[in-house]
C-alpha cells in the first residue's frame, strides 16, 4: 500500500478511535462517577446509608461487568438503534462502549473513594458540612489522584474495547487492523496500527500518571 494512502487510512481510523473513546469515556465517567461515589458511601452507617439500594446497584454493576463485551454489543442492538438511530457506524458503537464503561468507572471510583480516610468525613461533618459538600470538597478532592488513575485505566481499556466494535461497523484502529492487516493480509497495515495503538496507550498512561502525581500531596518531601 502506498505510504500516503496508509497514512490517510491510519489518520481516519485514529480520529474514529479517539472520537469513540472520548465520547464513551466522557459519558461513562459522568454517569459512572456518581454511581461509584454512591457505592462507596451507601453501606450500613455510611453517609448515604441505603444498604438495599447499594446491594441492587452493586448487582447490576457486577452483571454488566461480567458480560463479555462482544456479547453486550450484539445484545443491546435494539437499544443502540433507539439511542443512536442506527445500529451501524461509529455513533452506534459509542452506545455499547459507554454502557460497558459506566460499571467499570463506577467500581474503580468506588475503590478510589474508599481509600479516603474516614476521619476526614468525620471532621467535615463536625464542621457542619452537608453531604454534598462532603462529597465534593472532601471525598472527590482527596481521592483525586486515585480518580485520575482510575480514569486513565478506563481510557486505556476503552481503546482496547474500541478495537472490537468493528463488528458493528464502528471503524477505528482495531477495525483497520483486522480488515486490512488480517483479512486482506497487509502486515504493514497491521504493524502500523499496532504501533499507533501502543503510542496512543503510552501517551494516555503517561499523561494520567503525571496528572495523578501532581494531584498527590500525600508524600511530598522537600
Amino acid at each position, binding site marked *: 500500500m502506498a505510504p500516503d494512502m496508509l497514512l490517510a487510512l491510519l489518520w481516519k481510523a485514529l480520529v474514529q478511535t479517539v472520537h469513540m473513546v472520548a465520547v464513551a469515556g466522557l459519558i461513562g465517567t459522568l454517569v459512572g462517577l456518581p454511581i461509584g461515589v454512591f457505592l462507596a458511601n451507601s453501606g450500613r452507617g455510611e453517609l448515604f446509608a441505603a444498604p438495599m439500594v447499594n446491594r441492587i446497584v452493586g448487582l447490576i454493576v457486577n452483571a454488566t461487568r461480567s458480560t463479555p463485551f462482544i456479547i453486550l454489543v450484539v445484545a443491546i442492538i435494539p437499544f443502540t438503534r433507539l439511542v443512536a438511530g442506527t445500529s451501524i457506524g461509529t455513533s452506534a458503537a459509542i452506545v455499547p462502549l459507554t454502557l460497558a464503561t459506566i460499571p467499570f468507572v463506577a467500581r474503580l471510583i468506588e475503590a478510589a473513594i474508599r481509600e479516603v*480516610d474516614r*476521619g*476526614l468525613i*468525620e*471532621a*467535615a*461533618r*463536625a*464542621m*457542619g*458540612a*452537608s453531604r454534598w*459538600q462532603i462529597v465534593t*470538597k*472532601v471525598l472527590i*478532592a*482527596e481521592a*483525586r489522584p486515585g480518580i485520575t488513575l482510575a480514569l486513565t485505566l478506563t481510557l486505556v481499556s476503552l481503546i482496547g474495547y474500541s478495537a472490537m466494535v468493528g463488528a458493528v461497523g464502528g471503524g477505528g484502529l482495531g477495525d483497520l487492523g483486522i480488515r486490512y492487516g488480517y483479512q486482506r493480509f497487509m502486515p504493514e497495515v497491521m504493524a502500523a496500527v499496532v504501533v499507533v495503538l501502543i503510542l496512543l496507550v503510552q501517551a494516555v498512561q503517561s499523561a494520567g500518571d503525571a496528572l495523578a502525581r501532581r*494531584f498527590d*500531596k*500525600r*508524600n*511530598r*518531601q*522537600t
Partner: protein
Amino acid sequence: MHTVSNPPAPGRAVLPSGAEMAPPVAASPMVSFRGVTKRFADRGGKGEFIALAGVDLEVPKGAITGIIGRSGAGKSTLIRLVNGLENPTSGSVLVDGVDVGGLDETKLRGLRRQVGMIFQHFNLLSSRTVYGNIALPLEIAGLSRAAIKARVAPLIDLVGLSDKAGRYPAELSGGQKQRVGIARALATEPKLLLSDEATSALDPETTQSILDLLKTINRDLGLTVLLITHEMEVVKSIASEVAVIDKGLIVESGRTFDVFTRPRHETTRALLSGLPGTKLPDAITRRLKADGGTGDRIYTRLTFFGATAEQPLIARLMSELGAEVNIITGTIDEIAGEPYGSLVVSYSADPAVLSRAEAFYAQTGLSTEVLGYGA
C-alpha cells in the same frame, strides 16, 4: 498499702477547710448531659453493647473541662454526642441550652459551626495546604473568598505557622498538624472546642506546647474547652474541671485540684498512680505494717497545697524533729495551675517525736496521711 491509705482508713487526716470549697458554678452550663445512655447494636445483630450507662454531667462555660477514662470507657462516644455526630439512645445533651437531639439537619449544621473539634489523628485534608485546610470550614459556611482570607491569616499567626501557610500536611510535623487542626476548629469562631485525644499521638514536649496553645485560646478567646483523654498529665496541666468516666458512667467529677488531691474512686486512683511522685517504691510498700511497735518508724505522706506549698516547711520540719527525718519520695508540681507538693517521710514512731510532729502539723496546717509503720 491500699488498705492503709484508702479512706475511710483510720489515720487519714482531713484537709484544711479551704480546699473543701465548692467550685464556682456558672449560671448556665455550656454542655449538659442528662441521663444519657448509648447502646450499640452488636456486630451479630442480636446483642447490644452499652457504651454509656446514664451520664449526668455539666460542663461549665469558659473553663477547660477534662473527661478522663481508660480505653473503651466511652469517652469518644460521649464527646461525639455534643456535636451530634452520634445520637443518644436515651437522655438528652444540651449545648448552651439547646437540645442537640431536637435539631433538624440544617439547624444541626448550624450548631456544628459553633462547636469546633480537634482529633487525635488531626484529620487534615492531604490535598489542601495549611491555608486551604483552615479555610475549609469557612468555605463550607459559604463565606466569600475575601472574608475567608481575612479570617484565616490571623489564625495562622495565632497557632504560629505563619511561614507554613503554603505547605501540605505531609510536610508538617505532628505538632504542626495539630496546630492546623486547632486553627481550623477555631475558624468559624465557635463558643465550644471539643478535643478527642488531641495530644495522644504526640511526644511529651509537643503535647505540652499544644496544651499551652489550648490554654492560651481558652484564656484569650474565652472559649470553653471540653477535652477527653486517657492521660492524667493532660488533665492535670490544663483542665480546671475533671470528670472521670469508667464503663460508661461518670464515677467522679469536680475541680481537678480536689479530685486529684483527694481521689475517691478506685479508677481515679488507678489513673493517678501513673503520675510520677505519687507512688511509694514497692520495696517500702511491702515492708509497711498498719500498726507500729517499739523502735518502728512511721511513714507519713505530707501534702502541700495552697499557702503551705509556698513555705519552706520541709526545712522547718527537719529542724523540728531533728536529723530523724528521712525523705522517701516526693514531688512538687502544679495541678490545674495550683501548686501542689507530695512528700513521703519517715521518722521514729517514738511518742515524743510523734507529739512534736503533731504539734508542727497543727500549727502549719499541713495535710498528712499516715501510710504505715516499718523498720
